[in-house]
C-alpha cells in the first residue's frame, strides 16, 4: 500500500451544484506526492470545481477523497486544510491585508504562530519570492505579477505540502507569467511540494510531469504533456493549442524538414539556418 506516497487518491468522486447538472462524474485519480500535475480541459469541463474539491472548499456529493492517506471529511478537514495551499486567478480577490506584510502574515496569525516565528516566516518567504522590498506597499501600488507573487508567498508561508494553482497565471502578462512559471519550477525541483495546476498555458503544461484531461466532468486522458501536444484529437477535445515551437516543428515536418524540438526558439533558429545553408 505504502510503496509510493500519495498526495491524493480520489475514488468515484462526483459533484453537482444542482441535482440536474452533474459537473464531475465518477472521477478516479491517484496523484503521487511531489509530482506536478496539470488539469486541462475546455471552459466548463469541471477543472475549477475539481480544484475546489481537492482544496476542501467543496465537499463531494459522492465518493471519497484521501489527502496524504487521510479521508477528507467533516472531522479531518481542519487538520487537512492547512496542508493545502491555493492560489487563484485574480490576485485582487485574494488580497486581504492593507500591506504586503500584513497580507502574508494574515494566515499565520490565524494559526496563532508566535510573533517571532511569524516575522521570520514573512521575511523568509517574501525574500524567496523577491518581494522583500515591497513589504510596506499597499496592494494598489503593485503590478499584477507582484500581487500574484504576494499571493504565492502568503500561501507558501503556511508551509503546505500541496499547492493548487487555479489559472494563477492567466491574468498576468507574458513576462510575469514566465516568472510565475519559474517559481513553480523551483517549487517542483525542491521536491517539497505536490503541485496541481489548472492552466491553458502551453508552456506551463509542458513544464509539468503529467496532464490530466477533463471532458464533460470525466477524465478523458491521463498523459505526459508532450503526448498531449502531439495528439491533435486530444488537443481539440480539450480545446488547447500546442506551443508555437511544437506547431512549427510539425509544420516543418509536414514539408519534409525534420528538426529537434530543442530547448528554446534560439536552438530551433540555429538548426533552421544550418539546414538552409546545407543545400
Amino acid at each position: 500500500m505504502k510503496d509510493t506516497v500519495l498526495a491524493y487518491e480520489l475514488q468515484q468522486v462526483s459533484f453537482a451544484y444542482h441535482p440536474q447538472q452533474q459537473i464531475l462524474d465518477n472521477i478516479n485519480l491517484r496523484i503521487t506526492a511531489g509530482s506536478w500535475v496539470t488539469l486541462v480541459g475546455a471552459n466548463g469541463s469541471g477543472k475549477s470545481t475539481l480544484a475546489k474539491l481537492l482544496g476542501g472548499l467543496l465537499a463531494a456529493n459522492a465518493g471519497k477523497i484521501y489527502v496524504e492517506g487521510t479521508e477528507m471529511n467533516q472531522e479531518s478537514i481542519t487538520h487537512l486544510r492547512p496542508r493545502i495551499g491555493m492560489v487563484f486567478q485574480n490576485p485582487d480577490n485574494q488580497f486581504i491585508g492593507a500591506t504586503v506584510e500584513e497580507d502574508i502574515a494574515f494566515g499565520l496569525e490565524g494559526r496563532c504562530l508566535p510573533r517571532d516565528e511569524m516575522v521570520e516566516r514573512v521575511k523568509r518567504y517574501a525574500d524567496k519570492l523577491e518581494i522583500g522590498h515591497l513589504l510596506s506597499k499597499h496592494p494598489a501600488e503593485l503590478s499584477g505579477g507582484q500581487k500574484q507573487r504576494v499571493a504565492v508567498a502568503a500561501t507558501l508561508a503556511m508551509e503546505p505540502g500541496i499547492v493548487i494553482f487555479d489559472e494563477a497565471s492567466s491574468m498576468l502578462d507574458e513576462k510575469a507569467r514566465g516568472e510565475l512559471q519559474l517559481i513553480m519550477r523551483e517549487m517542483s525541483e525542491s521536491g517539497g511540494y505536490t503541485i496541481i495546476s489548472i492552466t491553458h498555458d502551453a508552456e506551463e503544461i509542458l513544464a509539468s510531469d503529467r496532464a490530466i484531461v477533463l471532458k464533460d466532468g470525466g477524465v478523458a486522458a491521463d498523459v505526459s504533456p508532450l503526448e498531449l501536444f502531439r495528439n491533435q484529437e486530444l488537443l481539440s477535445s480539450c480545446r488547447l493549442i500546442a506551443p508555437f515551437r511544437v506547431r512549427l516543428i510539425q509544420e516543418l515536418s509536414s514539408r519534409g524538414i525534420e528538426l529537434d524540438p530543442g530547448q528554446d526558439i534560439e536552438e530551433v533558429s540555429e538548426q533552421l539556418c544550418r539546414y538552409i545553408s546545407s543545400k
Partner: protein
Amino acid sequence: MSVHFEQVSFAYDDRSLWRHGALADVSLSITPGSFVGIAGITGSGKSTLLQHLNGILKPTAGRVKVLDFTIGAGDKGPLRELRRRVGLVFQFPEQQLFEDTVEKDLCFGPLNFGVPLEEAKDRASRALEMLGLDDSFLPRNPFHLSGGQMRKVAIASILTMEPDIIALDEPTATLDPQSRAELLQLLSRLQREEGKTVIVVTHRIEEMLPYAESWIVMKDGTPIFQGTPAELVREERHLSEAGLALPECIRLWNQLAIKLGLEQEEPCLSAEAIAERVAALYEHEVHPPTWGGGAGDAG
C-alpha cells in the same frame, strides 16, 4: 477618423493609490473599420486609454474625438448615444454581469436604448450563437457559469447593442486557447464583413498578430510605438522597452532575417508561414510570400 486623441492627458487623483496608469500627452488616430491591438504592461495606461473611448473617463487635458463626438476636459455632453455606439468589454466579466438569467443580461442594453423586447431577445440569441453558446444558456444564471462562459456572455452582451466600435480589455485572458482563437476570428469577421472598428488591449501579442492591422505599444501612459505589424516586428525593441516579452515567432523571424538577409521582406510570423518560407528558401525560391498569409494559422 474613428478615434482621434489630441494631446490627451489624464491624471487620477494625485493622492490616490490608483494614480498610476494615467495618460501623458497621448496623440493617436484609429482608422474606421480597422483592427487595432494595444499592448503594454500593467499600469502602462492601456485600460485608462480604453475607458476614454466612451466617456467613462474624460481627459484632464486635450481632446478625444470618437465617431462624431468630441470630449474635452470638463465636458458633460450627451454620452448616451456615444455609449450605444462604442461597446466596451472590461477585464473581469463577473463585474459586468448582474441579472439572474443570461437572457435578461443580454437584453438589458438593447432594452435600455429603446429596442423592442422581441428584437432584443432575437439579438440576444444571435449574439450568443456568435460566441459559440446555444439557446440553452438563455435561462441560466450567469453566475453559475464557468469563468470562460461568463466571459463569452459578457462579450455577447456588448454585441447585442450592435456598436460601431468594439473595444475589449484583455478579452481572451480566461478563455481556453481555441475559444481565444475563435473569439479573435469572430472579431476579425465583424471587422471585415460588418465594418466594425475593433480595438483590443492585450498582453498576448502573438495570438493577435494574424488579425491586427496596426499596433499601439504603451509605456508609462504614452504610446511609444504606432504602426503596422511588419514595423512592429522590425522595431521589436519597442516591445522590450515597454517591458513586454517578445513573442517566439518574432524572435525566430528576426533571427532568421538577420542570418539569411531577409530584413526587407514582409515578416512571416505564423508557424505555417515560417515553415513555408524555410522550405522555399531551401529550394532557392526567393519570392517572398505576401503579407497576411498567416491569418489561417490561428487554429
